[in-house]
């Protein structure tokens, strides 16, 4: 194809290679290095003058490094007189961030790391255990804790979930400030006040977390991107943040084909959404296949309690199968998880767009097994599996995980093995969309039929 150049960032070289193989073109050569002071240095080896340039970079690994590298690459192509620059982001960075500290507590990672062998079938986030002295002001964690809890301290106490509904565990350490930067550096400077169960500080200001969607969109446009290709955006509204065309591809046809081809008696299976936000996505698949559908719903309520409530009592009603309780001195957050739909003796297929910490999906699997499900598949488009997620999945009730290579998966394959883990290839669908966009053909056909 004339004037088509596909360049790859350092986040996912193998995907770029397969895309180029599918397009039967040579991959454009880029040497990406770091200067000794850590700054990213780029050199595009071949001319891109008046060319149609596509840059493949996934939002995985060191997200910020990869994102800045992408911005520099776009800018470099632009200053080198490229005709059009299209950023291809199979996984869009910063597409899913908890919108409030509350949500961060549950969907973000409450990950106090536990020792590897302590991952349980139940997939309970590790807790420092009941032996830590009460009201200690310092954060204590176990020896190999490289991930302090980014639980945005709800009332100075961290989030934990009860192992079984009957077991009551009180979280008894408190940290003055929540510990930031769960991976890289330096928590010392973070200067945040303790908040109560409603996210309010003493002064009454409700602490909030900035949403980065618009910023990321604007940064890409500023760098010079003329067009964007991405896949299964967490929020479809994200497209509206851009003033440039965004092609949001779907992995649904891929997932559907997997179900039809590889799940025995797929007519009998139940498609399950692990949270209410993903219901639409899951029903779409269920409709397309013509099988039944179930939903797991998580509810969090803040209620004021004089004494820590008996968790056993609150969870004795039928639909509550797991309950997470966050206790603080004056306020109590009760989170209940319930299943809507019947899964007894059925094969369940959990469908989600993104698995990050894997708490949601492993808890969902546990709940399904508790409710009598026979076998649990998890079909996810973007298997990010950050932190210890992959080990958690390994020990969880999920029988098989199917994901795509929108982010590199070979390391995960080594942990889980091919019996438990399968990777679908998205390079063909991306390659076809690149071909169609380059030739000015319609892309919408890919939405329904895949490639």
């Amino acid at each position: 194809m004339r004037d088509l150049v596909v360049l790859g960032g350092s986040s996912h070289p193998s995907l770029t290679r397969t895309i180029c193989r599918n397009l039967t073109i040579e991959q454009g050569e880029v040497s990406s290095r770091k200067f000794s002071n850590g700054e990213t240095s780029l050199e595009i080896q071949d001319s891109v003058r008046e060319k149609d340039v596509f840059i493949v970079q996934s939002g995985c690994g060191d997200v910020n490094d990869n994102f800045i590298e992408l911005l520099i690459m776009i800018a470099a192509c632009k200053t080198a007189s490229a005709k059009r620059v299209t950023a291809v982001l199979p996984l869009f960075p910063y597409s899913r961030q908890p919108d409030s500290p509350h949500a961060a507590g549950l969907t973000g990672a409450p990950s106090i790391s536990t020792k590897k062998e302590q991952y349980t079938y139940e997939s309970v986030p590790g807790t420092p255990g009941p032996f830590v002295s009460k009201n200690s002001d310092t954060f204590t964690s176990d020896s190999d804790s490289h991930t302090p809890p980014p639980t945005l301290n709800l009332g100075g106490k961290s989030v934990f979930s009860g192992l079984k509904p009957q077991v009551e565990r009180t979280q008894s350490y408190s940290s003055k400030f929540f510990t930031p930067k769960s991976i890289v550096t330096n928590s010392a400077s973070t200067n945040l006040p303790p908040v109560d169960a409603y996210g309010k500080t003493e002064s009454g200001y409700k602490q909030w977390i900035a949403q980065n969607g618009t910023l990321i969109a604007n940064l890409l446009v500023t760098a010079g991107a003329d067009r964007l290709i991405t896949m299964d955006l967490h929020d479809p509204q994200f497209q509206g943040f851009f003033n440039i065309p965004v092609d949001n591809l779907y992995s649904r046809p891929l997932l559907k084909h997997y179900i039809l081809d590889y799940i025995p008696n797929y007519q009998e299976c139940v498609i399950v959404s692990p949270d209410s936000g993903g219901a639409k996505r899951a029903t779409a698949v269920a409709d397309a296949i013509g099988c039944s559908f179930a939903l797991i719903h998580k509810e969090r309520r803040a209620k004021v309690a004089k004494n820590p409530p008996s968790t056993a009592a609150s969870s004795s009603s039928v639909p509550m199968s797991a309950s997470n309780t966050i206790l603080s001195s004056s306020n109590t957050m009760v989170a209940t998880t319930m299943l809507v739909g019947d899964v007894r003796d059925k094969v369940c297929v959990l469908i989600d767009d993104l698995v990050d910490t894997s708490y949601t999906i492993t808890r969902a699997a546990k709940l399904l097994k508790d409710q009598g499900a026979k076998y649990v598949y998890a079909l996810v488009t973007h298997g990010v599996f950050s932190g210890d997620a992959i080990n958690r999945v390994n020990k969880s009730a999920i029988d098989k995980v199917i994901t795509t290579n929108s982010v590199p998966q070979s390391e995960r394959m080594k942990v889980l093995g091919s019996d438990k883990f399968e990777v679908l290839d998205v390079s063909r669908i991306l390659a076809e969309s690149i071909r169609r966009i380059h030739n000015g053909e319609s892309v919408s056909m890919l939405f329904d039929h895949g490639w």
Partner: protein
Amino acid sequence: MPATPNSIKLIGGNSHPELCEKVSKKLGLSLAKVGAFQYTNKETAVAVGESVRDEDVYIIQTGCGEQDINDFVMELLIIINACKIASARRITAVVPNFPYARQDKKDKSRAPITAKLMANLLQTAGCNHVITMDLHASQIQGFFRVPVDNLYAEPSVLRYITNNFDKKDLIIVSPDAGGAKRVASIADKLDVQFALIHKERQKANEVSRMVLVGDVSDKVCILIDDMADTCGTLCKAADILLDNGAQKVVAMVTHGIMSSNATEKLNNSKLDRIVCTNSLPLNDKLAQCPKLEVIDIAPTLAEAIRRLHNGESVSYLFNNIPE
């Protein structure tokens, strides 16, 4: 109608907490309750725990960290954007060491002008003003459409020299031709001689051949540069100066990046000592390198913030050190 009075909100990024602390102490303010953290998937997020509505916001973040420099850039962008969303009246990025400042020109085919990109990104995020220090090339100010205050470490350097050396046998040396102007200005103000080392560079961060212009025999040489990265240049320059009969060689640089094995190189070099400002965190380097000394620039930054907030002239700081 005059604008209603507002106050300074000082926000510290995670790159240089010590400097943030010093500036806030100098200003007599505590840091605002805005903090950045990172999720396990390595995305950065910013929590805002205090209102910045209609306030004058200053965000201190320097470009540093061999592993984290891009993280800190994103962190700065996200904090700026968060303040913009939170309706701050004016957002000023205080970036003592401007990241990617050396990639300021298209020196090869298809080379990115990343400094320009950084300028654009900062403005896109919502930055209304930039305070920086000793930009590698002052033309970078022209990359911005918003005002940029490029402060100088020169007054602090001059004071250090006058306090620590005898002018009689002093000579100021520039380790490369690019720094000649900076060095000439300092030599003029001290009324001493200056010399120049010309180097031929083949690859970035690698130095090949060096030639000395000027007489340094029996002199105390002060090498002055804007940044010390791998320190290869400084160490080689010291060798050349001593070969040409210099008494001893001291290096003074604004930004002590000291990447990879720079401290080791300095320890093994013939440099008598190296003096840096604290525009970057140097605490771990201080432990590794006994030759290292640090000048505090927090007062200059704090005074610039105070003057900017009150609408006073900043140019006083180009020649003076605030007390």
